[in-house]
């Protein structure tokens, strides 16, 4: 089977879905791999690296034309779809719950499409779970970004020129990203607090040496390890619980999300107005609508001395690692779907079932 690796077109995106290393593994397994020219440029991969991996490097059109399986990270867009035909099997994020129109278009082409953001949260799927691998990096980078933007330093320092108080960091949403953010902030010596709707995260937060802000009557747990939407009342009680910490915080990182839904609004404009001059908010959920009322995706808004940075693309800024991990996930996914270089289409099997959104033009989810 011929696998085509497309260059990411979304602005700001620096990753590539398959690294030279993984390309090599695929060709070794007998796949043919065609890589769009300069696909890896921003991840410090040269075209030559891919050629060394026994892959071909072609221009865009050829990639579409030659390959049966097309892989990219961000959802296929209008441009891409123009070149898609019913032979194609597309793999990328699709966010099918929130973007039905895209799914329809793909179906119209009669192609098949797997969505990486639909990989189930079961233990054996963890090594294909791009959400985990990427939001993990996002968690790390968001703290670095915060530390870079802040006018203060993180650690406590008692020096001859006086004592610097440690920075106070507040994390909303303790998923993969949230946990890694906590760990990173703690390493840098900040005083970290965090809150989440899923009660079991308390122990997880404490297992990283940070404090958990309990919201009375939190009960958002849902079997598959995701949260469900929070009630009005919960949001209110949450505010009461966190405001004291929020108004003292130097850095706030929000990662709260409900899969397939608009992310919950956790910090209102009015709350921002009460925050410290010089504080920074990093809204990792911006792409899904954001956890902060005034945050805008890929923009920095400043309101009475508080910088609000809306970003979802933190991982790209560590594109090398991000691409490596993503590629490894993809490799495991492809390995899972195929048997000696051919797709198994084993639709009974859970992972295939949940990720296969469009099958030969019919929408399954």
């Amino acid at each position, binding site marked *: 089977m011929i696998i085509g690796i497309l260059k990411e077109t979304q602005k700001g995106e620096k990753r590539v879905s398959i690294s030279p290393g993984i390309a090599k593994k695929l060709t070794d397994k007998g796949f043919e791999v065609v890589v769009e020219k300069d696909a890896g440029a921003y991840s410090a991969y040269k075209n030559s690296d891919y050629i060394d991996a026994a892959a071909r490097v072609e221009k865009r059109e050829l990639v579409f034309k030659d390959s049966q399986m097309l892989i990219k990270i961000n959802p296929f867009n209008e441009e891409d779809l123009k070149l898609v035909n019913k032979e194609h099997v597309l793999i990328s994020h699709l966010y099918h719950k929130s973007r039905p129109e895209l799914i329809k278009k793909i179906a119209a082409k009669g192609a098949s499409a797997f969505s990486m953001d639909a990989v189930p949260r*079961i*233990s*054996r799927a963890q090594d294909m779970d791009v959400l985990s*691998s990427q939001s993990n990096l996002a968690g790390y980078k968001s703290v670095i970004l915060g530390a870079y933007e802040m006018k203060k330093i993180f650690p406590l320092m008692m020096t001859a020129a006086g004592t610097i108080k440690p920075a106070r960091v507040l994390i909303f949403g303790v998923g993969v990203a949230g946990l890694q953010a906590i760990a990173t902030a703690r*390493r840098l010596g900040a005083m970290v607090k965090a809150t989440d709707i899923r009660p079991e995260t308390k122990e*997880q937060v404490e297992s*990283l040496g940070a404090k958990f802000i309990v919201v009375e009557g939190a009960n958002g747990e849902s079997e598959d390890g995701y949260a469900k939407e929070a009630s009005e009342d919960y949001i209110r009680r949450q505010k009461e619980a966190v405001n004291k910490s929020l108004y003292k915080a130097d850095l706030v990182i929000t990662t709260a999300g409900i899969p397939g839904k608009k992310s919950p609004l956790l910090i209102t404009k009015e709350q921002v107005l009460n925050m410290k001059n010089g504080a920074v908010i990093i809204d990792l959920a911006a792409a899904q609508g954001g956890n902060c009322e005034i945050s805008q995706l890929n923009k920095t808004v400043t309101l009475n001395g508080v910088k609000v940075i809306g970003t979802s693309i933190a991982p790209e800024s560590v594109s090398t690692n991000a691409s490596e991990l993503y590629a490894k996930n993809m490799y495991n996914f492809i390995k899972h779907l195929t048997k000696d270089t051919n797709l198994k289409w084993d639709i009974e099997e859970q992972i295939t079932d949940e990720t296969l959104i469009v099958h030969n033009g019919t929408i399954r989810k």
Partner: protein
Amino acid sequence: MNISLSIIYLIATVSFIVGLKKLGNPTTAKNGNLIAAAGMGLAIAGTIFIHDFEVPPLIYILIGLAILTGSIIGGLMAFKVKMTKMPELVSLFNGFGGSSAALIGLVEFSRDAGDKMQATTIVSGIIIGAITFSGSMIAWGKLNGSLKSVVNIPYHNIVNNLFLIGVIAFAVFMVSTGVNDQVLVGALLASGLIYGILFVLPIGGADMPVVISLLNSLTGIAAAITGVLYSNMVMLIGGILVGSAGIILTIAMCKGMNRTLGAVIFGSFGGTDSASDEDRRLGSIKKTNPSDSAIMMNYASNVIIVPGYGLAVAQAQHVIHELEELLTKKGVDVKYAIHPVAGRMPGHMNVLLAESNVDYSLLVEMEDINSQFKNTDVVLVVGANDVVNPAAHNDPSSPIYGMPILDVENAKHIIVNKRTMNAGYAGIENELFYNDKTVMLFGDAKAALTSLVSELKNM
């Protein structure tokens, strides 16, 4: 008594004390055993050859014969037995010792018992000897399974204690009246034997070690009594030593399985057999304690530590590092096996161990270390569960089926530290804990490891 014999006995006695002393420390224990044995040999030889009255050769021959047979049988039993079967063997031997004491009593009784004093010693010798004998036999039977676990005698406590009182009364009567009638002696002997049985029968297999140790110290006392009888120092002191040491040991063991000796003696051993509490769906688990685990590691040549979420929950990263350093200093080769999804976030274990400055080169990935487990003496699993759950290989129905895991079950010994038998993230049973090679070290990781470390330091 002949002077040179006295001196020999003196030496023997000292060797007993020293031997016992050395037995109390892993590094000197073996010497201790030898020293004690040597002393014993000396005492026996001396007894045989040094005495100031004539002995017909026949008797010498008989004695020689007896010793020969005894030694051979004993030696064979000792060297044939499987490691696991040793405790029951000890119990068997102990029974022999007791019976020997009883027999002596019988003989001496037949030769009219002089003053009351003597009579007392003889009679008590017979009774105690009898009790230890029958008791040990039952214990032995229970341990090798030929006697199936708990036999429930209604009200056995009351019954037993009443019976004991009866026996004692009987003995006192005999001594005071000074009757000298073989039948009565037989009765006495019998009652002793019966009590021994009554005493041990209701006790569950798990408590046998304690019982044996108790009976053992009884044998000691029997020996001491015989010593008094012959005003023979080596027997007296040797016996007392065993008696007192035995008691202390018994107490220690009780502590180990948190019981009080009082509870033990006054029959509240009870039917409940601590091991049998554990649910048996997957067989039974073996508990262990810090000091045993410490010894296992101390004498291992390589150890692999498998950290899991529990290590983070307990915030035990600093202690585990201390443990690793300590073992390394003792010449043990230590590594950490890091499962890709151990903990609750990617790289959780890395963050944790970096915090306590564990050298990166000691952290080994799953792929690289799985092959090494089979040559590993001891694996210490700390607060990990799913990532070492064989169900991932064996049980297609399991939610973690197909997830790669750390194959710790290939190691020679496995120590698992967690607080309870509760499941981990995936919420499923883990048959590893019921593996024959696995021992469970229950308790919060920080606490458990801390005591483990201090145990190791005292070695």
